[in-house]
């Protein structure tokens, strides 16, 4: 739970109870990135 999630959760009770939290979006984004790397769509990330 993050600041953003907590505040969103509070507002989401008033609007849409099934809205996906930022926390979940972050996990989904990370997994999409991981799969793109895993299946060779993105081959190299420089640092």
């Amino acid at each position: 739970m993050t600041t953003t999630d907590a505040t969103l959760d509070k507002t989401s009770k008033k609007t849409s109870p099934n809205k996906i939290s930022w926390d979940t979006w972050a996990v989904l984004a990370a997994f999409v990135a991981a799969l793109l790397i895993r299946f060779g769509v993105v081959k190299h990330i420089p640092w």
Partner: protein
Amino acid sequence: MSETFAIPQIKQVQVKQAQPNLQFLRVLPGILLLAAIGYAGKLLEQNVGKYAKSHHWIFPNIEYVLWAILLGLAISNTVGVPAIFRAGVATYEFWLKVGIVLLGARFLLGDVLKLGGVSLALVAIEITGAIAFMTLLGRIFHLKPKLTTLLAVGSAVCGVSAIIATQGAIDADEEDSSFAIAAILALGALALFTFPLIGHALHLSDHAYGLWAGLAVDNTAEASAAGALYSDAAGKLAVLAKTTRNAMIGFVVLAYAIYWASQGQAKTVKNKAAFLWQKFPKFVLGFLLISVLATYHFFSKDQVTALANLSRWAFLLTFAGVGLRTNFREMRKQGLRPFAVGAIGEVVIAVFTLGLVIGAQKIWGW
């Protein structure tokens, strides 16, 4: 509300604007600002040292983490963050969570279970001690009981997130949560600069320092930054220890919600399992799942390196955001007493957790 970027403004920005869908254009300027500051920090790390060396100057090697935070602090505390960037800057916690999930690829499950087990034991002691001590301090300083609860949860578990989650669960005032958040953030900012100095002065190993930062620094972004300022390995450990602490948030908030409901001052929790799931930080599960995949060689060695680098880029945006959202002028306005309670509590918790970590270091020989 002033023109500068302040803590209460962050909350408003997130409440009104932080919708994951169809808000991309509103957050884009702020995200670009985070990226620009983070990248500038990286360039400064690479070039300032080289320049100083070529001119035979003695200049300490400053990591990109500190440069990014300092650049953000300089902007936030001089010209302020213009309104167009605020919604995007508020996404820094999103990048933090993305970075933590991806960091899971650098931990094999065995390491997570071993280190997580040690962390869990230390976290349990830290949470119990911190809540007891902060409650006592709140009574001594005659703070309002719910403000004391918010400060106790913020110091014991998970900083700002825990405070906001608890505020909703115990029906505390917005003003109390603003006080508690300001105190926790101000102390987190101080920890960024003091913890690495103390760690070096005590010659702590990366392992011991990382655990200490993860146990004692309250907000996840500051804990990750305080760890990374020491070393890459310490940063990893700080994230792991802090993630273990974050996983406890639901249980602590639930306990307080039940207590305040029993006092007739909060709504009764009907479905405890649903409450726990709602409060549980989902990125902890993402971190564990990536770690399981890495353990079973779902990713090649090069792919793990790519994931680790992507995690660093995500943290780069986070560290820029830590600097940008820290405004000392706004923090001063929040009043002295909650800050004093928070400061005394944080110092005692920092010393207490340092003792725990040094004790554990002797037992496990890190």
